């Protein structure tokens, strides 16, 4: 019952409590940093026989080399670098990069982190904190593949393709419309997406080079000739070529009138032709089903998920077999950990239900034309048009418009009450 000097004892307890709080609470978070593509990093780093140091430390060194090169070529999430050879606009990148803030002249920065990072990830890997809970998953920019564009299937998207996706969003997915952003901000974000994609492709290219060309004791070259000429230039060329790689859009045939709805008499002949092609040369019913409800085959993966699935099969298959040396086992276990912890769980890609009237790539006739012509890059959907300029597709260019007309009529095709043979169609859903 020591009641002497209660005030100073009180003071001591207060200070102690406050100190505890301060110790637990203090310290700023380090700045954001890019993540390596660990799936590709482990995939392309098989150990060789006769390695002197343990595989894990060798792999870490390799990854550190790649990280250093990437930082020199592309900078950090807070401070991007735009090499002249990439043709990227640094001012736009700086608008998009960095933590969210408005600087003194009333300009907004950190656009990517404000609008995109929590789904697409700080590295553009489609693995932001929110990504695991979305269906479909957000786009991983690193392979350089984009689904909804107006260029040839294997070409990169043009700037206006990316801008269009930002502007319209992707209906039926969690990608929202950014139509209300000022155009300058949309441009900055488009530039940043190209930057992240180029960076991702550079990373993949480095891993591939290391796997194919380097020996165990070799170090990745860091000369300008190698990095720019051999690694970067092919990537940049594809991106810059995208602006000129637009598919030709055939003239609309006379018996197609897109100003009228699909069930209008003006379009009857065209819709009938489209139906024939849908069930015939177009080859659509294999996946979309004769009902066009997307109930055909459904066991396929899109390319982003396919990588995980195939690599994971190799790993689990390899883990069971006897290992020829310790390095191999360490490699496979590391890969299994990466797949478990660092990759999103793979999902099959269901073929689209065409009766909903929800078109992810846009609902204008020209959008549907583009999807049919080249198919969807990265998805199992094949194109009915030629695969390159001067080629021949399974359906004539002009006839593709009839398929477009048929598809546009599908959501309104059924009549009668909702039931087992008449599932929910566009006019009920909306």
């Amino acid at each position, binding site marked *: 019952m020591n009641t002497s000097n209660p005030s100073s004892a009180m003071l001591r307890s207060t200070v102690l409590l406050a100190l505890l709080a301060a110790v637990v609470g203090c310290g700023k978070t380090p700045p954001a940093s890019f993540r390596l593509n660990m799936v590709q990093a482990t995939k392309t780093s098989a150990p060789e026989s006769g390695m002197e140091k343990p595989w894990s430390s060798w792999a870490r060194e390799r990854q550190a080399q790649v990280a250093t090169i990437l930082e020199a070529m592309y900078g950090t999430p807070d401070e991007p670098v735009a090499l002249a050879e990439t043709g990227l606009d640094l001012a736009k990148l700086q608008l998009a990069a960095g933590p969210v803030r408005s600087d003194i002249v009333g300009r907004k920065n950190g656009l990517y982190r404000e609008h995109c990072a*929590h789904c697409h990830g700080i590295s553009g890997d489609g693995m932001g904190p929110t990504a695991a*809970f979305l269906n*479909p998953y957000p786009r991983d920019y690193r392979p350089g593949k984009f689904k909804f564009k107006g260029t040839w299937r294997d070409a990169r998207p043009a700037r206006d393709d990316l801008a269009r996706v930002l502007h319209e969003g992707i209906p039926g997915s969690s990608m929202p419309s950014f139509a209300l952003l000022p155009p300058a901000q949309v441009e900055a974000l488009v530039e940043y997406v190209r930057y992240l994609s180029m960076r991702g492709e550079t990373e993949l290219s480095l891993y591939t080079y290391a796997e194919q060309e380097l020996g165990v004791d070799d170090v990745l070259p860091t000369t300008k000739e190698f990095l720019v000429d051999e690694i970067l230039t092919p990537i940049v060329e594809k991106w810059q070529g995208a602006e000129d790689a637009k598919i030709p859009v055939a003239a609309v045939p006379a018996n197609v009138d897109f100003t009228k709805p699909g069930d209008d008499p003006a379009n009857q002949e065209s819709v009938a032709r489209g139906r024939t092609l849908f069930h015939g040369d177009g080859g659509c019913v294999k996946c979309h089903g004769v009902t066009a409800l997307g109930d055909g085959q459904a066991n396929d993966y899109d390319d982003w998920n396919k990588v995980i699935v195939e690599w994971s099969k190799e790993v689990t298959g390899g883990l069971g077999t006897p290992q020829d040396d310790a390095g191999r086992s360490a490699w496979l276990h590391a890969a299994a950990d990466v797949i478990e912890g660092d990759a999103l769980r793979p999902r099959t890609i269901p073929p689209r239900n065409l009766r909903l009237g929800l078109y992810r790539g846009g609902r204008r006739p020209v959008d549907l034309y583009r999807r049919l012509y080249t198919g969807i890059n990265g998805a199992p959907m094949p194109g009915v048009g030629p695969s390159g300029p001067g080629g021949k597709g399974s359906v004539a260019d002009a006839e593709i418009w009839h398929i477009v007309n048929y598809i546009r009529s599908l959501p309104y095709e059924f009549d009668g009450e909702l039931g087992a043979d008449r599932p929910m169609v566009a006019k009920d859903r909306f």
Partner: protein
Amino acid sequence: MTPPPVTATPVVEHGPAVGHAAGHAPQGGLSHFLSTYVFSKDHKVIGLQFLFSTLLWFLIGGLLALAVRWQVAWPWSDVPVIGKLFAQEGGQMSPEFYTMLFTMHASVMIFLVIIPILAGAFGNFLIPLMIGADDMAFPTLNMLSYWFMWPAFACFGASFFVEGGAASGGWTSYPTLSTNPASSPASGMGQTLWLLGLTFVGVSSMLGSVNYMTTIILMRAPGMTMFRLPMTIWAMFITAILQAFALPVLTAAGFMQLSDRMLGTGFFSPEGNVVNNAIAGAGGGQPLLWQHLFWFYSHPAVYIMILPAMGMVSDILTVFARKPLFGYRPMVYSIAGIAGLGFIVWGHHMFMSGMNPALGITFMVSTMMIALPSAVKTFNWLGTLWGGKIQFTTSMLFALSFVSMFIIGGLSGIFMAATPVDIFIHDTYFIVAHFHYVLFAGTAMGVWAAIYFWFPKMFGRTMNEFWGKVHFFLTFIFLNGTFFTMHILGAVGFPRRLADAYHYETFHHLQPMNAFMTYCAIGMVATQVIFAANFIYSMFWGPLAGRNPWNANTLEWTAPSPPGHGNFDYQPIVHRGPYEYSVPGVEKDHLMQTDPPNAAAAAAAAAAH
């Protein structure tokens, strides 16, 4: 109020001796320790167990609130401490994390702090003491009501660590956001654990309320008629009735939601409801059904969260104004009126919900009327102060601030009761301001008043008055800084639950005000360190208190501090109401409830002791 007959011989009346006031002799052994301090059936120990647990969760809920305030003031900036969880993104929190923060802040504060601290901590500790009983009617049930909180603590606590995080559908948990696992990250395990935790809290509350009602009705001391009960007890009694009648509806609704989520039923999901491209469930239900069931409980719940505080504040005001309570019976009737009307106003949470607008009119009328008993109570508090001799102790300051802040909270309620105005302010910060004023600036201040007031009875020592006043002053300033300007935000239409509101033209100039509010909130939470230090220090090293350090009237002040098993030296016998302060013709400025019926006898008794 006729006093019981005076017997011939002894001047001072005592009932038969019950129990002993001194502490029990230590008998050693683990089972003895467990049954005395852990699984105790003594209402005082249980009350203290509730008190410590809820104060700890108060801290957690407050820290969650700070994280919310941080994001609202500086969206997408590096959050202290929590930022480490988002190191990849440079410390900026993800949007679903924000939805989790405000959901869990509210859930923790409502279900794990306010309701248990009022009923579980103070109800348990005070009811037998204030009515002159030696314990509750069902001591084992009482112990279970505390231990049922622990599964709730575990469920809520564990939910932070499951995949997807803790529940993030708002504490109101509306379908189909909460019933569909694909609708949000936490709509998986997190939401299920939330529902389970809620069920446990509900069971705990039910056990408690049955106990309180029975005890108050059946175990009052001789002479303690219903209208001699202190307001604290009236409030606890009516609150217990509210709990008993309203809670089953929430429990049923909770089971229906669990069933929708886990068994594929469709109570709350319409047919063909597709969220985030997941397959639709059975359907055939209505989202609005949940809202009706939920608010049928949760509106009485808000009265459960304030009535006990009102009762305790009434008592504290009389003690430190040295005056009887102004309008005792009207005060009792008002509490009953609030409780009764509280059952027919739930639709005012649903004016914009899509329910039939005609119901908007009926609920609007009943909601307007429920302002009336609260107004009557406020006037009676003012009447209690008028003509008094006010002692500005820490407890009194908190009690006075309850009155002052409740006026603000109550008046702001009138805006949202007006349905046309509610069109604009529903789901804005005007609502947030209203309920923080009644719940924090009201109830929490009342709780602090009660802690400072009954601390001597609980622990036998008084808290430090100087630091208590510092605590009061800083809390008062900071809470008004944090919450008053929320009314202004609401007037602009600033919506609730937005992780970042500044990209709207209408709201982008409001960031500086929000930053100011967050600074005040940080100050407010930091101030509680002083309270915590004062509390902990005083528990062990505070100055010893006698039986009645405040010279109050009610029965608990006749017992030792702290009371032993059985509470009282002798069975108390009650001769008067609880508010006989400054009685003319009596030398002492207060007549305790147990003091003998006539003044001469009182004087002789005083001389004899």
